[in-house]
């Protein structure tokens, strides 16, 4: 059975997406840090059953809180799974209205060499705020599938599920000490803000 892990910053809607994918009801609140322990659910698509895991939100892979410790431990377990030829996919959920802070985690996940899909959540809110994001270009730069979604309304969830088999290990290379510079470059080339 393939494993899917939902990774992302706190308060990016991982639990909402989890409910959408699996139909399992989890506690969802309008403040960050709701998920401290993880929840498991199952998703069936094209006769394949996936185990979906809702991971607590984390800003970084260097844990500073209890919830982040759980998240990092789960990532390590899935890397271990990959080494034993099992399948694990990581969906990195991003708050598209706050790319800079969220891409930090994306780059850290990329440097761990795991099969990744990036989901840009809050796509409706992005339009409201007058931000335009060239997600196809982001896909090119990162070298992994990027899907804009709106977990609350369910927009884009189908496309995300269809892309599950296209998860890729990115070969983007960068110096981890200069990640903020890299993030700045990426954002400059894909994001435009109009008011």
């Amino acid at each position: 059975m393939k494993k899917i892990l939902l990774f992302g910053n706190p308060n990016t809607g991982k639990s909402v997406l989890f409910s959408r994918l699996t139909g399992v009801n989890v506690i969802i609140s309008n403040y960050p840090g709701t998920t401290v322990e993880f929840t498991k659910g199952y998703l069936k698509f094209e006769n394949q059953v996936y185990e979906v895991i809702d991971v607590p939100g984390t800003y970084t892979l260097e844990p500073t809180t209890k919830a982040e410790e759980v998240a990092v431990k789960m990532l390590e377990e899935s890397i271990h799974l990959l080494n034993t030829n099992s399948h694990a996919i990581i969906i990195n959920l991003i708050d598209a209205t706050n790319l800079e802070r969220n891409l930090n985690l994306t780059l850290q996940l990329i440097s761990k060499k795991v099969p990744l899909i990036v989901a840009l959540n809050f796509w409706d809110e992005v339009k409201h705020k007058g931000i335009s994001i060239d997600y196809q270009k982001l896909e090119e730069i990162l070298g992994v599938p990027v899907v804009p979604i709106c977990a609350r309304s369910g927009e884009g969830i189908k496309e995300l599920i269809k892309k599950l088999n296209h998860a890729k290990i990115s070969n983007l290379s960068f110096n981890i000490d200069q990640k903020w510079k890299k993030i700045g470059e990426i954002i400059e080339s894909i994001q435009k803000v109009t008011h």
Partner: protein
Amino acid sequence: MKKDLTQLEQNQKGKIIEILGGNTVVKKLDSLGIRVNLEIIKLSAISKKGPVIIQAGNAQIALGYNIAKKIILETN
């Protein structure tokens, strides 16, 4: 002028020039996107020694008083 974050006035802009404190503090702030050379605005502070709220890019971040003390900014 050099000031720490707690000394900034409300709605005053500043550029972070130094973060005092150990690896843990620097890394924690880094994970939130707070780093040297970043321009921020102090939005408000709660009471005298309460948390400080800053605007960094699109995000508003609340920082504890003791961490705010460690962030040194350059103001005009």
